């Protein structure tokens, strides 16, 4: 995964530029990427323990299974990563995921064209609601935390009106789409690869660079002529779009809709990003890290299972891992800052 130059970040650190000798500052790069490297190490450790206790872990089947288990969180966390890099936070994805699953579970029929239409409608709705979040944040100068807390509540309410309890159904062919195979890899693995490809493309686009620049320093982005409102609309719109995508994928796994399921993805999506080295202060982070964070959170469940301890230890383990990785980033950040001064 390309974690190459970060022109925006470099521009923010004139002191570093001055002191930089010709050639590559390997130590500085390592420090910048320490949180990401720690996440990789954690994942390797978890996979190693898991693999030594369970046979057949290093197989395509296992990869297919684990990716399917993690992909909903990964999709939700992709949107969250974009918002976090922008320097915001999106709690409304919980409402959007619930809403997406209940619309799908009540509107999808056996007819593929109806399904395609409604799936597109759900994705469009996700983008529009996210864009509305961005508009509210910009135009009324409101805090992302409170705006998205409010829209989460509203979307959750709408989902509960559409489908008061878990239920509904999606067609069987839609569910089997979640397990469709190509070259031995199931569709979730292909979607995971597509996510990485998307990020590799997106972060170098004008929009991607602008979002990162705005997250690094909103004032200088604004003074450079960036429309903060535009950035917010696109950032939160994308977050809503990915939440809608997560909802659609989730229905292939559950086969039904749930008006409450979305809340299980709000804080884990932030946690996955933070474990992967995305900074809550904006401007720093990569999707590769987030996806590894999502894998870590998902595989803890497998690990708890093969260790034959109560599954209730899973939240304890994920909390401890979250703390460890955020402490690692904080130490690395302090070291990096000390180096600059």
């Amino acid at each position, binding site marked *: 995964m390309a974690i190459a130059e970060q022109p925006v970040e470099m521009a923010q650190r004139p002191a570093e530029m001055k002191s930089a000798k010709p050639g590559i500052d390997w130590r500085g790069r390592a420090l910048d990427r320490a949180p990401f490297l720690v996440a990789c190490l954690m994942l390797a450790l978890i996979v190693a323990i898991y693999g030594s206790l369970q046979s057949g872990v290093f197989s395509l089947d296992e990869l297919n299974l684990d990716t399917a288990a993690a992909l909903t969180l990964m999709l939700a966390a992709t949107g969250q990563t974009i918002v976090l890099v922008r*320097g915001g*936070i999106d709690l409304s994805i919980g409402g959007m995921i619930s809403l997406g699953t209940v619309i799908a579970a009540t509107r999808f029929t056996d007819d593929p064209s109806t399904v395609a239409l409604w799936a597109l409608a759900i994705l469009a709705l996700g983008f529009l609601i996210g864009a509305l979040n961005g508009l509210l944040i910009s135009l009324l*100068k409101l805090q992302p935390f409170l705006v998205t*807390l*409010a829209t989460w509540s509203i979307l959750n309410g709408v989902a509960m009106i559409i489908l008061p309890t878990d239920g509904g159904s999606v067609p069987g062919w839609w569910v089997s789409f979640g397990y469709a195979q190509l070259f031995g890899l199931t569709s979730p693995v292909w979607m995971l690869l597509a996510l990485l490809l998307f990020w590799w493309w997106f972060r170098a686009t004008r929009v991607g660079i602008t979002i990162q620049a705005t997250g690094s320093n909103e004032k200088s982005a604004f003074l450079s002529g960036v429309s903060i409102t535009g950035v917010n609309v696109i950032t939160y719109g994308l977050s809503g779009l990915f939440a809608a995508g997560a909802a659609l994928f989730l229905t292939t796994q559950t086969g039904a809709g749930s008006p409450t399921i979305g809340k299980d993805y709000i804080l884990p999506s*932030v946690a996955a990003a933070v474990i992967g080295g995305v900074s809550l202060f904006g401007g720093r982070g990569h999707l590769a890290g987030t996806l590894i964070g999502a894998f870590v959170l998902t595989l803890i469940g497998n690990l708890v299972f093969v260790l034959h301890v109560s599954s*209730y*230890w899973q*939240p304890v383990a994920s909390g401890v891992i979250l703390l460890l990785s955020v402490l690692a980033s904080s130490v690395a950040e302090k070291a990096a800052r000390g180096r600059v001064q």
Partner: protein
Amino acid sequence: MSAFLARNRLIVLAYAGMVVLLLVTALFSPGFLSVSNMRSTVVLAAFAGIVALGQTFVIIGGGIDLSVPWVLNSAAIVMALLCGGQDLPLVWVMPLLLAGGAFIGLINGVGVAQFGVPPIIMTLATNVILQGLILVLTGGSPTPSAPALIQYLSVGRIGAFPVIALIWLALTLVATLLLSKAAFGRHLYALGTSATVAEFSGVPTARTTILTYVISGLTAAFAGMLLTGYSGQAYLGMGDAYLFTSIAAVAIGGASILGGSGHYLGTVAGAMVLTILTGLLPALNLSSGALLIVYGAVILLTVSIGSETFAGLGGKMRRKEG
């Protein structure tokens, strides 16, 4: 008087909203303003209000506490387990659990103030860790019923007044004194306005930050024990609703989520507004889904009103970079 109104515009608005809401509700359901109904509304609001007390301090200081649900739930369950329905053990169980809540707050505060962990992540982590530990401890099974004394504290009455309303009143007095009269309060507003400026002005920022989380741990644990008395039993997940409610009460009460402004008196009105809304909707024959929509709309409305005054560039976390 007008200076007072200008300074506390949002708090006054929160109370005005509360009164309007009371009248509107009374219009749709005539029995709503009856003494018995007002009493049960205040009792319900008291639980949200007590949890939101700590949340108010944390938010004024520029942080947020996501660990309240499982601090509350842990206190409730451990209390029920240790007491086994008896009153006598409460003599040591209650102080022990209050200390436990304060200890979790201490961990949160130290993580935020000393290690620079973002509040959202720090308190989220302690929340899930507590959740897991309690699940392991109970094995997911229900716990014995609440001791009679705790039931008295949460549903009993002294004369015409519910005991818990009096407890809430006393806590409100203490919180008001702390915020308005004590040095701690001045430090807290300074810290929430700008951590950097406060630090250079000699405010003990680390100690003040840690104290807000300790207070939040204390109030969440206390509310957990009282809530066990109200429902007669401690159960898993009883605290989950209080995360949203406590933050919403603070926001409706006029505090800026960026820190540096707001008052517990506003939060009291916020807790009342949220509770009255739950009473209004059955009167209008609306579902729980509609209640969530109204909650969201009310939060959006109140923070929009406050935004002209407290608008700031950047997010909550960016402020910390100072």
